[in-house]
C-alpha cells in the first residue's frame, strides 16, 4: 500500500498507478544523468557518484523519516530543526572528545529526543493545541534555552564517533547505511505491524479509530516521539560530521520546513492517514539530486535557493492541481 500512495485522490483512477517513490527517484536519476552528460562529466554517473548523493541526503533523511510519522498520524512537527541543534550540541558537549562518553552522550541525546516528542505529543493531545502552534512553541523554547546556554561550537566529538559520518563499509558510508536501515525498519513497521496500522487509522479517521478501541492519544504521542527521535539522530549525525555541535546547525539546515517538504513531495498527505516512508526517502534523494545538478551546472547558492523553493511548489502542484476540492 505504501508503494502506491502517491496517486492523488481521484486523479489516479484513470492513469496507471506509478508508485510515487519510484517515479521520483527515476526522474531524479534521469535528470542527473542528463546533466552530467551535458556537463561533460559522464564519469560522475557511477556507484560512487550515487553514494555521494545519498550522503548529501543523510542528515535530512533521519529527520524526514521521523516527520513522516508525525504527518501520517495527522499532526506535524515544526520543532525538529531546533531539536537537531539541541541534539548536536548536547552530543558534542557531553562527549568533550572523550571516547568513553560516546555511549552516555548518545543515550542522553536520544532520551532528550524522546522527552521532547513526549512533550509535543502531550501538548497536542492533552491541551488540544494545534500541532503547528504547539511545536512552533516548543521549538522556540528549545532554541531559546539552547542559545542562552551555548553561543558557539560546544565541546567536541572523539574520532571514534566521527566514524558515524565518515566511516565506510565497502563503498557505503555508515551514516547512509544507518539512515537507509532506519528507513527500512520504519517502512516495514508501518506496513506490517499493528503499530503501523494504528498510525494510519488515527491519521485517517481519529474518531473511527477511537471507536475501534484504539488509544488514539497514545498513538499520536508515540508518533511525535518517533519524530523527535529522528531529529535527535540528525543531530548526532551532524555532530559527527561537523566534529562538534553549534546551536545554529538545525536552523541553518532548515530541517523543519525541508523535512515537511520532502514528506509531502513523497506523496504523504498533510491531513494524515496516507503515505509512507518510501516516498519520503525518495523525496530526500530527489532533493539531493537537485543539489548535485545545481552544483554541476554552477548555479550560485542564492539562485539555487530560489529554484529550490520553486521546485517544492511545483512538485506538490504536480499532483495537487488535479484535485477537485478546495485547498487553503
Amino acid at each position, binding site marked *: 500500500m505504501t508503494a502506491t500512495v502517491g496517486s492523488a485522490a481521484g486523479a489516479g483512477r484513470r492513469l496507471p498507478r506509478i508508485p510515487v517513490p519510484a517515479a521520483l527517484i527515476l526522474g531524479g536519476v534521469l535528470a542527473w544523468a542528463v546533466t552530467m552528460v551535458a556537463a561533460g562529466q559522464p564519469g560522475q554517473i557511477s556507484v560512487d557518484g550515487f553514494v555521494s548523493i545519498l550522503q548529501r541526503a543523510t542528515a535530512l533523511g533521519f529527520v524526514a523519516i521521523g516527520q513522516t510519522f508525525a504527518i501520517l498520524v495527522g499532526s506535524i512537527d515544526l520543532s525538529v530543526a531546533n531539536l537537531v541543534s539541541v541534539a548536536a550540541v548536547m552530543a558534542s558537549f557531553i562527549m568533550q572528545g572523550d571516547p568513553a562518553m560516546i555511549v552516555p552522550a548518545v543515550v542522553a541525546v536520544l532520551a532528550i529526543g524522546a522527552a521532547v516528542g513526549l512533550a509535543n505529543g502531550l501538548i497536542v493531545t492533552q491541551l488540544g493545541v494545534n500541532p503547528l502552534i504547539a511545536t512552533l512553541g516548543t521549538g522556540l523554547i528549545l532554541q*531559546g534555552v539552547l542559545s542562552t546556554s551555548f553561543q558557539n561550537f560546544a565541546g567536541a566529538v572523539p574520532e571514534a564517533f566521527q566514524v558515524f559520518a565518515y566511516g565506510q563499509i565497502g563503498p557505503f558510508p555508515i551514516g547512509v547505511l544507518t539512515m537507509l536501515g532506519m528507513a527500512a525498519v520504519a517502512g516495514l513497521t508501518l506496513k506490517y505491524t499493528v503499530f503501523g496500522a494504528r498510525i494510519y487509522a488515527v491519521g485517517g479517521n481519529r474518531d473511527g479509530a477511537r471507536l475501534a478501541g484504539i488509544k488514539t492519544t497514545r498513538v499520536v504521542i508515540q508518533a511525535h516521539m518517533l519524530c523527535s527521535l529522528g531529529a535527535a539522530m540528525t543531530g548526532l549525525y551532524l555532530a559527527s560530521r561537523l566534529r562538534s555541535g553549534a546551536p545554529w546547525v538545525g536552523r541553518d539546515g*532548515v530541517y523543519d*520546513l525541508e523535512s*515537511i517538504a520532502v514528506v509531502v513531495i513523497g506523496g504523504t498527505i498533510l491531513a494524515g492517514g496516507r503515505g509512507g516512508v518510501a516516498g519520503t526517502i525518495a523525496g530526500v534523494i530527489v532533493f539531493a539530486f537537485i543539489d548535485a545538478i545545481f552544483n554541476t551546472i554552477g548555479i550560485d547558492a542564492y539562485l539555487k*535557493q530560489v529554484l*529550490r523553493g520553486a521546485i517544492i511548489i511545483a512538485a506538490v*502542484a504536480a499532483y495537487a492541481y488535479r484535485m477537485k476540492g478546495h485547498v487553503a
Partner: protein
Amino acid sequence: MSGGDADRAPAPAPVAEGAAGAARAGGGWRARLGGLARIHPIYIVLIALLVAIAWMSPVFAEPAGMMNFLRRAAPLMILAAGQVFVIVAGGFDLAVGSLVTLVVLGSALMIDGDPTMTGITLAVMVGVGVAVGLVNGAIVAYLKVPSIIATLGMLISLKGVALSLSGGSPQGYLPENFRFFGRHTFTDIPLIGILPVAVIVLVVFGALAIWLMHGTRFGKQVLALGDNPRAAELAGVNVPVVRIGAFLISALSAVVAGVLLGGFAGVSTDVGDGYELQAIAAAVIGGAQLLGGRGSVPTAIAGALTLSALFTLLNLLGFPKPLRDAVQGLILIAAVAYTMAQRHRRG
C-alpha cells in the same frame, strides 16, 4: 487599540421577530464596534503587561515612551493585521518574513542613497508585494498547493532572490526621505507630545485592514470561505479572487512593514527573519482560528502588541534575547491551550 471585538454583533433579536430592525439599526460595522459588552481577554493581558512595563520603567508611561514603543511594535502589528486575512481564509502566509527582507535589501540596492529614487522604489516594492501576493494566492487557489507548502516555497525563493540581489551582504543605503516612514517623529504634538510617522502608517494600515475584514463584503466572504470553501463557492462567492485577495493583503502588509523596518532598523540580510511565525503567533494569540473561519483584525493587532510588550518586559527584566524567544513559545502554547479550554467549556 480602541477597536473592540468587531466580530460580536449587537444584542440578538429572535429571528422570527425583529431581525430586520436589529441588523439595519446596526448600519454595519461601526455600530458593532461599539458593542464592547464582551471584552476579548487579549486586551486584559495587554493592559496588564503595559502596566507592568510602566511600573518597571516609568518612561514608558509617558506619551513619548508609549509612542516609541508603538513605533517599534508597528511592523509586527501591521504584519499581524495582514496575516489574519490569510489565517481566517484557512491558510498560512510564511512568505512575509522573506518579503520584508527582500523589500529592505531591494530598496537599498535600487535607491543606493539617491533621494530622487525613493518614489519609484516605493512603487516598485508595492508592485513586488502585489506580485508575490498574487502568485501565492494563485498557487493555492488554482494549483491547489496547500498554503503552508506554497508560501514555504515562496519564503525560500524570496530569501534567495534577496540574497542574490545583494550578493549575500547588505548593499546600497537608504536615503533620509525613505527612512522618513520608519524613523521620523513629529514633535510638539498636543496631548501626545511626539508622533512617529510609523504610528501614523500603522493607524492607516490598521484602519484599512479593519475596514476590509469587518466593514466590507470582502471580509464576510473571507470568513465564509475560510469556514467552508465549498459552501461559499455554491453560494456564488468568487473563491479564487477572495482567496488571492487575502494573500495580497498579507503581502502588502509585508511591504509596508519592510519600508518601516528599513527606516529604523537599517539594511541587513536578516531583517525579516522570524516575522512570519511571529505574525501567525500574534494572530493566534488574538483569537484567530487556524484553518479558518474565525478571527478579527483588532484582536490580531492587539496580539502583536501583546507579543511586543512581552518582549519589552522581558528585556526590562534582563532576560537575554534567546530566552525571550523561549518565553514567546511558552506564551503561544499557553494562549492556544487557554482558548481550547474555553471552547471546550462552552461546548
